[in-house]
């Protein structure tokens, strides 16, 4: 990461840096102004026909779900943009960065607002491209490029599946308009293609939101500058997948496939990720893995249909975005001022960076799920939601408990130890408090976490309920957000979480080796990626070596083999064989001619003497000319003889510089001979078949009738050449000219001596 290079320049990047912030704030304000309307249950829709002939439109829908996402995206976006303006102050490529980040934000907004499958897909892919460019911000390093490609490839692969899924969905439902499709949920679930559609779409969403086993690209994506991570990996990009599942929830949820796939994948990802998170020493990596955990949890809840689950989903979605963005930004501040992110090195920053520490503390407490923070409510709801699961509630509950406890511990590692623990280790740079533009973000977000915790009603009516509504269709089942719900199962589980979490936090240093061994045992998908690439390239170059070996003979052989298959194979397949030819009309003269030609041809093929070959060619030419004479084509015969003469002349000239035909003994190639014979035979058969059918001479009759009266020529052949088919002849003389020019250019263009 080279983004600490400009630590001493807090100045910013002037207008280039501030315009994006302005855009984000305006959007945020606009969405905020629409919030009341949405809270009243309105669904704001806007349609622009884009490709009507394909039934593709740019239609946008603003309901609870999309509004929640829109606000998170634009709001956090504003913070992050402001933050990065200082973070990357004076960076030579800042303007590109700002451009990419802004366009990413806009693409993301388009994604969550789109109401047309294909329109949604377009924005989906736009986020893919822009995040590729953002992750590749550190393109100078091999690692940076690798991460960017990995992210693009994995999500891109998913996107293609998603596209297929969308097309199937659209074609089988007869429309690409999401709201129309979702309105016909039962029809969709009953459709024969429901399962393939579901699988394809989930392939897209799981890769995008890094569900196991597609999780590995996300931690690597931390190669991006911290603000990017904060944005992409907390609030938005990775949540695009979650968003889509949520969006389709009303249309596709409720089936067993949906339930089991999402629940298991979600739960497993959550646990798996939080174990890995505890193992990390790099603060950013730790946060990345906790993001995975969060995504897993969200997926897990989307697998359900209960009101608790949906409320939990909506709440946790917001909670997580707030504290995760805050913490990423905090880590950015630490990195920015100390030059490191190593948990074991950092310590005692509390005094030097009080504001940062404050923000970190608030966010961490929310993350750990302490009252009175929103995180606590989120956790309570999560437990409530998990317990509402129809089957195996306790299994999933305990999984969630473990995940939460681990998250608790990680919160401590990330947000407490760097500030309060004592380490003798020296820091790369003498730390200093971060400049204010970098503090607004984390502090504000953290404070929001606290405020909503104390007073959840605002959140309830403005975002949570509408979101639940767009998931379940009504707000009836939406559960209330409150800090104190009395002593109940969730509360007990919370206390258990705190206890277990504290234990894990205190013991995590000792746990790490054990976890390390555990993870080593588990399959490493990141290394798998490298193996995959190696295999792909290996296979590619193998097949290319086989197909494209660079040896002309192989190419010609393959081509002729194809010709043979095409002709003989089709003849066999379509029974186009000719009858036995009738040779009654053959005269002695004809036989002599044929023998002459064949002898010449064969002599050409077998002789090793260049002159013999040349002369034999002449013989064939003469023989063919004789055929033209016998069968009344004087013009052709003359042309043939003249051309043959010139051929011999040219070859005779060329041979003066060319070596013998056979360097190492006469070449006899039985395999080639077989192929050649087969092709010759099949050509003969085709020709015989053609000659069986009667010839239609109306063109010729027309030429004979009009040649003199209308074209004033007695030599019909010439009249055809220069009048009836003059265009042919013109093209042909063009060929002759070009052949001459090309040959001339070839001879003049270089001289072997000059050529290196």
């Amino acid at each position, binding site marked *: 990461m080279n983004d600490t290079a400009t630590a001493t320049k807090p100045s910013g990047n002037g207008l280039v840096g501030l315009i994006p912030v302005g855009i984000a704030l305006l959007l945020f304000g606009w969405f905020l102004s629409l919030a009341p309307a949405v809270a009243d249950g309105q669904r704001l829709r806007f349609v622009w026909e884009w490709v009507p002939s394909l039934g593709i439109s740019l239609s946008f829908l603003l309901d609870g779900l999309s509004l929640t996402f829109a606000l998170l995206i634009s709001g956090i976006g504003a913070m992050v943009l402001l933050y990065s303006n200082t973070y990357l102050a004076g960076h030579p490529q800042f303007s590109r960065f700002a451009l990419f980040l802004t366009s990413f934000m806009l693409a993301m907004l388009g994604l969550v607002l789109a109401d047309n499958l294909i329109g949604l897909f377009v924005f989906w892919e736009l986020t893919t491209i822009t995040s590729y460019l953002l992750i590749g911000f550190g393109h100078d390093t091999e690692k940076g490029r690798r991460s960017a490609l990995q992210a693009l490839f994995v999500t891109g692969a998913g996107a293609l599946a998603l596209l297929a899924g969308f097309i199937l969905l659209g074609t089988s439902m007869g429309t690409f308009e999401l709201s129309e499709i979702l309105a016909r949920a039962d029809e969709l679930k009953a459709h024969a293609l429901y399962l393939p559609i579901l699988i394809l779409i989930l392939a897209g969403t799981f890769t995008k939101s890094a569900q196991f086993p597609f999780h590995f690209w996300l931690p690597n994506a931390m190669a991006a500058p911290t603000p990017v991570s904060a944005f992409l990996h907390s609030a938005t990009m990775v949540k695009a997948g979650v968003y889509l599942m949520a969006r389709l929830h009303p249309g596709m949820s409720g089936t067993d496939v949906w339930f089991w796939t999402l629940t298991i994948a979600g739960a497993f990802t959550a646990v798996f990720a939080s174990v890995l998170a505890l193992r990390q020493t790099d603060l950013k990596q730790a946060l990345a893995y906790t993001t995975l955990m969060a995504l897993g949890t969200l997926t897990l809840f989307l697998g359900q249909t209960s009101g608790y689950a949906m409320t939990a989903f909506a709440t946790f979605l917001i909670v997580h975005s707030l504290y995760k963005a805050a913490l990423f930004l905090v880590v950015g501040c630490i990195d920015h001022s100390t030059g490191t992110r190593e948990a074991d090195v950092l310590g005692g920053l509390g005094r030097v960076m009080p504001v940062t520490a404050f923000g970190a503390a608030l966010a961490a407490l929310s993350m750990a799920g302490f009252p009175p923070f929103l995180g606590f409510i989120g956790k309570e709801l999560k437990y409530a939601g998990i317990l509402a699961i129809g089957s195996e509630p306790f299994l999933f509950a305990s999984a969630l408990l473990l995940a939460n406890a681990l998250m608790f511990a990680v919160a401590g590692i990330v947000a407490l130890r760097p500030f309060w623990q004592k380490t003798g280790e020296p820091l790369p740079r003498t730390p200093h408090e971060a400049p204010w533009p970098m503090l607004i973000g984390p502090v504000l977000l953290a404070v929001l976490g606290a405020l909503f915790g104390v007073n959840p009603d605002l959140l309830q009516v403005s975002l949570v309920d509408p979101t639940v509504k767009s998931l379940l269709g009504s707000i009836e089942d939406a559960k209330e957000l409150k800090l104190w719900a009395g002593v109940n199962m969730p509360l007990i589980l919370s206390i258990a979480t705190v206890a277990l979490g504290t234990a894990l936090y205190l013991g995590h240093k000792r746990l790490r080796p054990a976890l390390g061994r555990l993870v080593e045992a588990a399959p490493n998908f990141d290394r798998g990626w490298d193996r995959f690439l190696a295999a792909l390239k290996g296979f590619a170059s193998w097949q290319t070596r086989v197909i494209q070996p660079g040896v002309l003979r192989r190419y010609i052989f393959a081509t002729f083999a194809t010709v043979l298959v095409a002709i003989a194979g089709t003849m066999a397949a379509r029974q186009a064989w000719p009858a036995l030819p009738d040779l009654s009309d053959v005269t002695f003269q004809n036989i002599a001619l044929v023998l002459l030609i064949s002898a010449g041809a064969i002599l050409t093929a077998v002789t090793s003497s260049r002159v013999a070959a040349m002369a034999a060619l002449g013989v064939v030419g003469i023989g063919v000319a004789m055929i033209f004479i016998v069968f009344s084509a004087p013009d052709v015969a003359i042309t043939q003889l003249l051309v043959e003469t010139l051929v011999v002349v*040219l070859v005779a*000239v060329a041979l003066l510089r060319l070596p013998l035909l056979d360097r190492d003994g006469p070449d006899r190639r039985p395999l080639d001979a077989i192929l050649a014979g087969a092709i010759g035979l099949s050509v003969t058969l085709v020709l015989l078949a053609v000659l069986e059918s009667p010839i239609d001479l109306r063109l010729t009759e027309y030429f004979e009738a009009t040649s003199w009266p209308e074209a004033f020529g007695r030599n019909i052949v010439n009249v055809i*050449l*220069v009048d009836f088919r003059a265009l042919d002849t013109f093209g042909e003389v063009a060929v002759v000219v070009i052949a001459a020019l090309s040959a001339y250019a070839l001879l003049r263009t270089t001289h072997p001596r000059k050529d290196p």
Partner: protein
Amino acid sequence: MNSIILRVGTRYLCGILVLFSLYMLIRGHNEPGGGFIGGLIGSTGFVLFAIACGTADARAALKVLPQNIAMAGLGIALLAGIAAALFGDALFTGQWLFINETADDKGIPLSTVLVFDIGVYLVVFGSILSIVFAMEEEI
């Protein structure tokens, strides 16, 4: 190639060939011949010249660069085709003019078709020579 016999022979043959090629060109529309055949025969004349006396002399005798002859021929052929536009006809529609035409005899025909054939002649002539000369100069 320093052979007196060949050189002297060529002196006559070359002339004969060119003359003969023109004859074949003109009569081509009514009897065997035409632009291709004419051009081919004409070029053989100069090919013989080049073989007998070397390309330097042959080029000198020809004066014009063969490629230019060929390309000019292409232009002429094209113009012969475009000329039809002047008479509101489609591309390559033959336009005829018969000098002192009578009832039974058409007289001397002048036509874009002939011009086209002349273009063809020049193309074939020039092209073959530019290849053969260049080739000759390589050895």
